[in-house]
């Protein structure tokens, strides 16, 4: 069942921001909307909430078109980056705000506030004002305030970006737990791929005012469909070549003098292709251990980054990055060393 659906949404300010965006979020799903700053994520949320009207297209909530419904009638939960807790109300006042508007009786409100306080583990702090809480606590109150009215869908706009790294990690776990408990359909906006990947059931990548790819975190991470996504999901190696031969189970791509074997067989011979592979999949050895996908290389630069060594390597005229896990027994190569680079054929994928 689909809870939120965006159909061909277009929106321009001075220039087009959303250019025909389509997205459907299944019920009880945790969906992340991931994209670089300024790509229109907040605009999308504002359209779902009704703070902005789309120039074209429809917004459905539970299969009802809500385009002309005022925000206060849409039954949506929203958490802002700055939390937006009402400073003139206590925690309890904030939590009760939406309930009072829904004419819930006093006793019921009291009970629901207590439950919410337990959910966010802030029991006993009901009478504090927001300024008397830490950033992480305010964050949780904002979440509880949005959830307490049992909205049909919960929207979060970069909710963790004001927190420090440690708190952010903790809140990610909290968010996951709370989502498991309440099972509210959630759209989570972020420009941090780690957040998106670690929290979501599915991730939608936004680029150029459209959804460029949508899929499970593993799919997005392992097999980004485009250059842009591959680049956005972290530093990857991308090389271009020509399809040299196509066989049943194996395609060979020639990149300069190098011949790369990949499993994809949907390509045509002679076609220009971009191949991508992740830098942590590159293995670096002193000796040549196999015959397929092993290339001679030279170390241009190396840097020791905690648990791994980052190499910049030159294969013929191509430069690639490799992250190699090290322990005390691993040999570390220096600038100028000659090495062999080895990749499995399934580590490559073809970008569109």
């Amino acid at each position, binding site marked *: 069942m689909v809870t939120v659906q965006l159909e061909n949404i277009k929106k321009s300010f001075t220039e087009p921001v959303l250019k025909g965006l389509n997205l459907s979020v299944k019920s009880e799903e945790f969906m992340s909307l991931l994209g670089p700053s300024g790509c229109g994520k907040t605009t999308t949320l504002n359209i779902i909430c009704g703070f902005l009207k789309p120039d074209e297209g429809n917004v459905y909530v539970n299969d009802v078109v809500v385009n002309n419904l005022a925000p206060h009638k*849409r039954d*949506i939960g929203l958490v802002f980056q*700055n939390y*937006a807790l*009402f*400073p003139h109300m206590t925690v309890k006042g904030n939590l009760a705000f*939406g309930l009072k508007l829904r004419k819930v009786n006093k006793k019921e409100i009291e009970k629901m506030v207590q439950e919410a306080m337990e959910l966010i583990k802030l029991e006993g702090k009901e009478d504090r004002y927001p300024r008397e809480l830490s950033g992480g606590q305010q964050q949780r109150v904002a979440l509880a305030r949005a959830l307490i*009215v049992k909205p049909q869908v919960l929207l979060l706009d970069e909710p963790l970006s004001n927190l420090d790294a440690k708190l952010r990690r903790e809140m990610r776990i909290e968010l996951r737990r709370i989502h498991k408990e309440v099972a509210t359909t959630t759209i989570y906006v972020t420009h941090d791929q780690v957040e998106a990947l670690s929290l979501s059931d599915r991730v939608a990548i936004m680029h150029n005012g459209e959804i460029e790819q949508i899929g499970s975190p593993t799919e997005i991470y392992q097999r980004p469909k485009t250059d842009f996504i591959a680049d956005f999901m972290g530093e990857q190696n991308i090389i271009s070549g020509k399809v040299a031969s196509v066989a049943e189970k194996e395609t060979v791509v020639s990149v300069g003098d190098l011949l790369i074997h990949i499993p994809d067989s949907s390509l045509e011979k002679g076609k220009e292709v971009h191949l991508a592979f992740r830098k942590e999949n590159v293995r670096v050895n002193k000796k040549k251990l196999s015959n397929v996908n092993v290339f001679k290389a030279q170390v241009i630069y190396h840097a020791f980054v905690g648990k791994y060594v980052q190499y910049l390597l030159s294969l013929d005229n191509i430069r690639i990055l490799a992250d190699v896990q090290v322990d005390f027994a691993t040999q570390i190569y220096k600038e100028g060393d000659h090495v062999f680079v080895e990749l499995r054929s399934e580590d490559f994928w073809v970008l569109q």
Partner: protein
Amino acid sequence: MKIKLDLLKWYSLIRFVVTLLPLIIIFLSAFSEASFLSFPPKGFSLKWFVVALTDKSILRSIQTSLLLAAVASMLSLLIGTLASYALVRYRFPGRNIIDSFITAPLTLPMVGLGLGLLFFFSSFLGGLSFINLVFGHVIITLPYVVRNISISLAAVDKSLEQSAMILGAGPITTFYKVTLPLIKPGLISGTLMAFIASFNNTTISLFVASPENLTFPVKIFYFIEFFPDPRMFAISSFVIIASLAIMLALDRIFGLYKIALR
């Protein structure tokens, strides 16, 4: 080095005394026995206080001024709150022009405005009525209200209003439950400043207050023109003390320094 700072301190202290000097004169002269104004005062008596407080025309003028200031500042509060909301929360063509128009009456010479209003009322809008006088004042009190409320409103993040709406509050409930409580300091300081500006305004009233609506400052103006005696200082003492009390209240609530620059 120390001496230089001391010099600065002593100069400033003298400067503060000079600032307060007229007020001291006003208070002391009010106790004079003589029937003309002089300083130092001759003798000591309370007779001018009695004269002032039993002078019906003075009391009536104070009453008029209080009513005028109350109506003008309340109207400004209503009109100014609406206008500030549009000016702060929306971007639209002509916004800057309206914005600078609203503060213009405070920067332009009051005699010019006064003459214009008098001339205008003698041809349109039915002459020098009380209601016209009120609107003549609204023009000079509205800027204080709009400035104060705009500053408060700009400090209220839009996301607070949006949060209220998405939690189920309609536009009016949102304004009432969230925006209004948060801009209350601006509303109070703006309205008090408007009240004082209207109560103290002499020039506009001098032009457009008819004899039935003589305000307190205009009354004082005629005293000075025709028979300056210590009664004027006696009654002014009360008014000054009331103004200082309002100032003190403003300072207590918001810090005078911050709002003085608005």
